[in-house]
């Protein structure tokens, strides 16, 4: 494999959340699309600056909740009417007593969908990623803010992209090996 092909992208380091948001907006304006921004916390407006945000989680939660709730109710309903009818003092099967377990399983189904949805849609767990190759990247979980322009971006062009990132007042710009 040629040296140039094993490049993941260029990583620019910033000192403040504001600097990173500015840089992302500038990179988007310059036509770059394959961007990743790293921060040690939620930065207001950063995800929005990177492009359309993922708003699928509420839908997943609804689906998980419906599966949990309908599943729990049907299971109980079949149990009391068909599979195992209990005749206690001649009372016919009734639904209100089935609601507590149905409610709990609705919440549980939604919660599982949210938790695993958030992780899997972020493609986590993923223990290896090229940006970890950068020695200074450990600061991304503490006090530094990073912008990575991927080599796969159609606008990416080694030196020109580096100059562009340096013009954004980055603390440093380094090439990340894939």
């Amino acid at each position: 494999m040629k040296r140039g092909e094993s490049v993941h992208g260029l990583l620019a380091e910033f000192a403040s959340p504001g600097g990173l948001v500015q840089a992302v907006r500038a990179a988007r304006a310059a036509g770059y699309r394959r961007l990743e921004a790293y921060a040690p916390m939620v930065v207001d407006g950063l995800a929005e600056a990177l492009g359309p945000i993922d708003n699928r989680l509420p839908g997943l939660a609804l689906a998980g909740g419906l599966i949990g709730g309908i599943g729990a109710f049907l299971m109980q309903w079949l149990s009391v009417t068909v599979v195992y009818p209990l005749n206690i003092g001649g009372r016919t099967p009734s639904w209100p007593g089935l609601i507590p377990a149905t409610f709990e399983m609705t919440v549980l189904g939604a919660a599982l969908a949210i938790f695993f949805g958030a992780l899997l849609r972020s493609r986590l767990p993923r223990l290896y990623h090229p940006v970890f190759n950068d020695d200074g990247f450990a600061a991304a979980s503490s006090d530094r803010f990073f912008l990575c322009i991927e080599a796969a971006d159609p606008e990416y062009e080694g030196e020109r992209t580096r100059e562009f990132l340096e013009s954004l007042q980055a603390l440093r710009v380094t090439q990340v090996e894939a």
Partner: protein
Amino acid sequence: MPDIRRPDSPAAREPAEQARARRPPLLAGAHTYDTISAKISGIVLTTRAAGWWHIAFAACSLLTLVFFGSIGYLFYEGVGIWGLNVPVVWAFDITNYVWWIAIAMSGTFISAALHLTRQPWGGSISRFAEAMTVFALTIAGIFPIIHLGRPWFFYWLMPYPNVMSLWPQWRSPLVWDFFAILAYLLLSLMFWYLGMIPDFATLRDRARVRGAQLAYGLLALGWRGEARHWQRRQSAQLLLAGLAVPLVVSVHSVVGLDFAAGNTPGWHSTIFPPFFVAGAMFSGFAMVMTIVVPLRHAFDLGEFFTERHLDNLAKLILAMGLVLAYSYVMELFMAWYSADRYEIYTALNRMRGPYAPVYWALILCVVVVPQALWSRRVRRAPWLLFGISLVINVGMWLERFMLIVTSEHRDFLPSAWGMFYPTRWDWAILVGSIGFFGWLLLLFVRYAPLISMSEMRELLTQQQEAP
């Protein structure tokens, strides 16, 4: 001339803004992003724990052995080792269960409710409050199992395909309890863990020992702080918080229904579900206070748990205490208003019968002592708050004991009356469970980030951006 009584006039608004500006910040001290990470991860990554930690851990380990040893003996010998017998068939076991599950209620609730209402002071206390929930719930879950005569059949509560073709009784609150605890435990675990992932990444990146790097690296799931991952996590936390609040109310309501569905005088009351929820919040907030004051002192975390945090928490305890006091009054009123001679007798028996000292001790602990929190000076004195919260915890245990035992020991027929006296095994399991809780908490503060570092960074950003 502007009318200062109008709330939207500038003259009326200004004092409020000045007052807000005068309030001490929620993150005290001259912190930067790096000092926050260093301070909080330093607690975990230091190679040697403090002397007090070792002493406390040894003591709690011993009590943990007592706890599991007693349970082992219970399994070997049976529930006869306890003091309970007909008519008092629920005593310490279910008292401990309700006490622990109530403590578990408020951890996730406090963190979810403060998250939903955008209260910035929840940031530092929510993490260990969630840990408290998970640990207390784990312990609570042990009690219904060990109170069974044949504990090895506890899984019969679960609907599963079995050769006996049996199904659970869906209309029983005990079955609802199983589902409620299952849902609450899993949701609390997910809420807690989702919050901790970025902090595990910080620990991974700051650890200098191979074992720690590996362990925290696995726990962090490869978190790298990508903006879209943060956004998804934030959205997930908001959704989970929104689910957690009604879930908490439902879980403790079901615990209340465990009693209310029976026809025993003193239990058979529709006030039980909300009354139990209020009691749960109250004892849980008190337990958060019991934990935060020593933690703040031991790790010198006064900058993160400021006096404003303690003050807010104390106000919550006071408010919940008032709801609970109202519930006690309502319980007495309803007993009288029911005109049912058994209900009236149970209410009077609680106050004048053989367990009267328990009743009056709990009124002192739960209704009288918390009134000290009206005083601002008390709310600013950490160790006084610690003492009050301990008294409340004791009082809430007594309350459950009173509710359970006094209702059972004299029900309808005087010929079936009896008394309950605890044995040493009752005490061993109660004290052991507290030791086990302490053991889990000590491990947590030593090996996991006890304050959310990412939320502290957000708080710092907000404080810096504020004029």
